[in-house]
């Protein structure tokens, strides 16, 4: 038998990922570093250089990006930033933030429960509550801390938290911090949720997202809500990627389905549609008062910078005054979806402004993304384990600020590269 000679291990950097380096042997937590760095120093020049490339301009539809590989500055069409309504760089927003810097200085300099609450924070919380049609709202320094802080504020050891399998890390981390029993149901699958809730005793919280950030599909809320209510579970919807966008008033996916009042807890962020920073939870005044005392991720963090809060207040005013921004976004989404379909580009089940362009080749996705960047379109690849094996993709975000010409330019570059690489259907 020739097995010994033939069984030499051959690998490339895509055979491994961060999950392979979670633990090292022995008692020193740094033992894992040499093996990790050997892999990373191979992965960086061959693909991973495309992550964390620094922007040298505002995240408008055109950005200047410094290549991690060559150090060169390149101007590119931006399909990577959230900023779904193109608000973060509007003059009204910038002027509000500048005025706040003049008035308050750089930061809040304190926890929100001690010295870190300013008048603009209270105004922002009130504006968010009003926009969402709720009694009250509470602010968190980031969207991540909103999920972690809220879930761990209301759920306890021995309680049950039931999550969609595609839940964002902040939701999962909130469940871990709550020390509750955590169960996952198949993505957007009300039947599997029914199975998971059957026979479950005690307090129950079901958590869903308005728009799922890796696939761009929206929550099957009517079916899921029906199951949750029949089993006596409370339901939290994380509208990070849908607040200010979906529904007649832009309140989110819950409003889109006419289920705004049926959902128990509404969470959102300011970093996506408004291009700012921070998170929030809306609900009854009693709930918000309780969370203010138990939301540790907020309690023990410095409050949002007042200049951010001021800029966000100006942003919300724009959203309220200019519903045409949402109309423009949805028109852009419809245009690009149609053009991708015509060119045979697969965007999966996306029905939102988040579009995954499926490459479905884990080894090739970095080269495809690099080639698209070389032709002037800024985007990033997402690969296993963030998405399933062979489901690697390019994640793109559409903004109301994109022009039809921008979208056509992006579509031609993306479809052209996919055709050259033998990935698209045409």
């Amino acid at each position, binding site marked *: *038998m*020739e*097995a*010994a000679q*033939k*069984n*030499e*291990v*051959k*690998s490339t950097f895509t*055979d*491994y990922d961060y*999950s*392979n*380096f*979670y*633990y*090292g*042997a*022995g008692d020193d937590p740094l*033992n*894992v*570093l*040499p*093996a990790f760095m050997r*892999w990373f120093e191979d992965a960086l020049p061959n693909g991973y250089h495309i992550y964390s490339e620094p922007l040298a301009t505002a995240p408008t539809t055109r950005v200047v990006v410094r290549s991690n590989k060559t150090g060169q500055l390149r101007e590119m069409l931006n399909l990577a930033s959230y900023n779904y309504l193109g608000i973060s760089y509007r003059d009204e927003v910038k002027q509000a933030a500048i005025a706040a810097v003049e008035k308050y200085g750089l930061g809040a300099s304190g926890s929100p429960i001690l010295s870190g609450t300013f008048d603009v924070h209270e105004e922002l919380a009130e504006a968010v509550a009003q926009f969402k049609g709720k009694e009250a709202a509470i602010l968190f320094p980031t969207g991540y801390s909103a999920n972690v802080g809220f879930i761990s504020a209301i759920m306890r050891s021995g309680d049950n938290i039931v999550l969609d*399998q595609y839940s964002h890390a902040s939701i*999962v981390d909130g*469940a*871990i911090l709550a020390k509750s*029993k*955590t*169960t*996952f149901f198949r993505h957007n699958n009300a039947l599997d949720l029914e199975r998971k809730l059957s026979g479950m005793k005690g307090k129950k919280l079901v958590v869903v997202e308005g728009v799922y950030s890796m696939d761009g599909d929206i929550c099957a809320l009517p079916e899921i809500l029906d199951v949750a209510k029949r089993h006596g579970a409370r339901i939290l919807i994380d509208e990070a990627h849908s607040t200010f966008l979906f529904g007649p008033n832009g309140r989110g996916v819950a409003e889109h389905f006419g289920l705004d009042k049926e959902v128990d807890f509404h969470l959102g962020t300011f970093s996506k549609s408004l291009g700012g920073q921070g998170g929030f939870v809306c609900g009854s005044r009693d709930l918000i008062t309780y969370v203010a005392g138990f939301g540790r991720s907020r309690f023990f963090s410095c409050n949002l910078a007042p200049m951010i809060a001021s800029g966000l207040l100006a942003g919300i005013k724009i959203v309220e005054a200019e519903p045409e921004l949402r109309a423009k976004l949805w028109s852009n989404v419809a245009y690009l979806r149609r053009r991708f379909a015509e060119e045979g580009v697969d965007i999966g089940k996306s029905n939102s402004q988040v579009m995954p362009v499926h490459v479905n080749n884990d080894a090739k996705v970095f080269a495809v993304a690099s080639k698209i960047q070389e032709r002037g379109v800024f985007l990033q690849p997402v690969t296993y384990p963030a998405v*399933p*094996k*062979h*489901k690697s993709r390019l994640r793109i975000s559409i903004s109301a600020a994109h022009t039809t010409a921008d979208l056509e330019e992006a579509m031609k570059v993306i479809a052209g590269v996919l055709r050259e690489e033998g990935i698209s259907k045409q």
Partner: protein
Amino acid sequence: MLEYAFSDIISGYFEFPTENARRLLPGHLEPIELHHGASVLSIGVFDIKESPVGPYRSVSLSVLVVPLVKGTGGETMPNSAFYPFLCGTNRPEPRALAIEHLHLPHWTEDVQIALEREARSVRSSVSVGGESILDLTITDYQWSEAHHLYQCFSKDSTGAYLAGIRTVGEFSDHQEETGQLRLHDHPFNAGLAIPDVYEVPLQESWLRAGTQAFESLVQLQPV
């Protein structure tokens, strides 16, 4: 070094509760979590055509665990690591060899392993004395040549061990969720809370026409 040539090795990976995984694992091994509270059960069926004890078939139930990364210069990184908590073979000789050399726990009777190969799938039915243990169907995706290193952990009354397995063969793996598992209510599956094991694999892999070489067994420090 033990060397085997195989026709097919099919593996299905199934989500199951971490509390179940921890009940099966010795204290020094950490289960890989797919997400919080959910670990991975691996069920493998092996069709061996050449070995030191001749051809045979075997089945293994394993928990995917964290690999041992030593951080030494030139170390080959394992592709994955697993802890077989119960194996079965269709003949006594390969069972004795695996117990003696690899310290792997085995069902003491011969098990019957049927394999039905279709163009794009393999269905395996495992039973003992006419009583069904499990039925596993695995489908293919795209084939390429693989050169992988797996880490196999074991523990018995003599100590804890690690064997590297260098595997070469035609390889297909995917997460299309097209395979299927049925676990029967049989003492072979007593370690598993069957209703909590997903019947659809989160990942399916299929190796064919290849070889496996077990590196010298390493005894791990007492734990």
